[in-house]
């Protein structure tokens, strides 16, 4: 656990290198959203969350994280490996036959750090609410974190869950939305507008925070603020304003790299832009 910004940025840089290499290695996967959410997951696992890489499914006494937008599995796997849940060398098996690192995360392969399967979108907030309620029954004061895509909010189940949590004062829950404005078929504006997200979450009864999602200092600040607001009767949601593909210029600002793998030349170009050389699996 650290609040050293340069150390966190260094980890983020290593994770980004892993992401492009993993997706390149199997020529499939989702680099864009993974790169965009790297800073948030690094901030969670290396600074904000109290967690134990000696993985226990029930996670009693530790903070839990659920990745609802499971397609950004590369960033999740890399962060877990860097945090010590399993050997970084295993990242090279991503999406390959016999791997524990399935295209979308699952508990089925018993990969440490994964507590629920995700990939079919819209389910993670409900699961997180259940886990948060279990913590309350267990008199466990630790927290539950989630991450969702903005496109994922088009799923109706999200709003069932969004209605439930404030009504039942699930105030040990900090959800985050990756607001990058992109989904597979184009911008969220064009595919199906999300409207005023801040106003929507407020209207549902959530305590809403916003942050620059690719700014490590801003993330540490907003996570500290979010944690300070737990236990006050409301669930908390952070709107993370990120850029899909962040860190690799040709992957930024477009939905094209939502689910596309780089070729050899593009990989070299991407790695060239991600300066750190440490930590490649």
């Amino acid at each position, binding site marked *: 656990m650290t609040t050293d910004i340069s150390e966190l940025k260094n980890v983020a840089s290593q994770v980004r290198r892993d992401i492009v290499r993993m997706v390149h290695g199997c020529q499939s996967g989702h680099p864009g959203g993974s790169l965009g959410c790297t800073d948030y997951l690094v901030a969670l696992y290396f600074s904000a969350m109290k967690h134990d890489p000696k993985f226990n*499914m*029930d*996670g*009693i006494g530790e903070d*839990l994280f*659920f990745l609802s937008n499971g397609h950004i599995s590369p960033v999740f796997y890399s962060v877990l490996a860097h945090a010590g849940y399993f050997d970084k060398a295993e990242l090279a098996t991503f999406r390959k036959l016999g791997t524990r690192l399935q295209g979308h995360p*699952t*508990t*089925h392969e018993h990969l440490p750090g994964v*507590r*629920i*399967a*995700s*990939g*079919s979108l*819209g*389910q*993670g*907030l*409900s*699961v*997180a*609410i*259940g*886990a*948060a*309620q*279990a*913590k309350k*029954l*267990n008199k*466990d004061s630790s927290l539950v974190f989630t991450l969702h895509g903005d496109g994922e909010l088009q799923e*109706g*189940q999200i709003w*069932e*869950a969004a*209605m*439930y949590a404030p009504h*039942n004062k699930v105030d040990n829950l900090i959800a985050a939305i990756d607001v990058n404005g992109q989904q597979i078929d184009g911008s969220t504006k064009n595919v199906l507008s999300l409207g005023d997200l801040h106003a929507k979450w407020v209207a549902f009864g959530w305590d809403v925070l916003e942050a620059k999602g690719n700014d490590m200092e801003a993330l540490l600040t907003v996570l500290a603020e979010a944690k300070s607001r737990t236990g006050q009767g409301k669930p908390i949601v952070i709107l993370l304003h990120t850029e899909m593909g962040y860190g690799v210029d040709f992957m930024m600002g477009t939905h094209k790299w939502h689910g596309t793998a780089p070729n050899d030349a593009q990989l070299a170009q991407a790695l060239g832009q991600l300066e750190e050389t440490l930590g490649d699996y």
Partner: protein
Amino acid sequence: MKKYTYTDKKDTRSGFGAGLLEAGKRNDQVVALCADLIGSLKMQDFIAAFPERFFQTGIAEANMMGMAAGLTIGGKIPFTGTFANFSTGRVYDQIRQSIAYSNKNVKICASHAGLTLGEDGATHQILEDLGLMKMLPGMTVINPCDYNQTKAATIAIAEHEGPVYLRFGRPVVPIFTDPDQKFEIGKAWMVNEGADVSIFATGHLVWEAIQAGEKLAEEGIDAEIINIHTIKPLDAEAILASVRKTGCVVTAEEHNRLGGLGDSVAQVLATQLPTPQEYVAVNDSFGESGTPEQLMTKYGLDADHIVAAAKRAIARKTK
């Protein structure tokens, strides 16, 4: 033919309610969720006893299934309650990803299954739920026959590690099993030993099968009747042992003939002991409004239809 008489008539969902209360008393990790159907699922006694262990989700079944999966993370044993239609078809993907594939210890408890929901009609009368649930890897599928057995099954599944689908109904049916029975998941129950035809029944059709057996006995036909309360894992050993003796089969269920108990039995027999088989099931159709009794007759699920099916099966055997 063994004589079975009933002590009382009661709905199986009340057996669930009584079982849930008992399971909650035995293990404080047991929790319950309901999507705005507390009365229909008979959950009020559990809620009165353990208010802090109950979660009212409102009319939001997908969220309920996800929450149930999440509650297992932390050691809880969640029982979800809603109608069978909304417990399966409506939330198939949530069950598939967050419960079955994630191997979460959730008990999906489904009331008002099948035609005997009656007057509400086809929108609510799911006849595909056993098929949907048995196709999910790792899912245990149970369909008990009366109040006592539903209660016993509810208590038993709390002690079973892994996802379970427990199906029961609304109608008031005879109670003919032991109040203190031990419910063994996956172990078929021999109702009556016989020599001429095997009748494998599930749910409240077990009572219809018993009545059919008595009618067949009057005509000198000796039927073996087995209660297949666990559709998955299926007790193939009991099925094969019975068929070796009788040489023909009738399956009886309140379900579409596609994908239910009959197909599970057929798969065992086709691969291990090909045998003439007749289905008593709904013939690939939706239901309609009517009283449960009217619907059981119209859709061919009552004792008389089992008798006719048994005779057809025996006729095929002697060819």
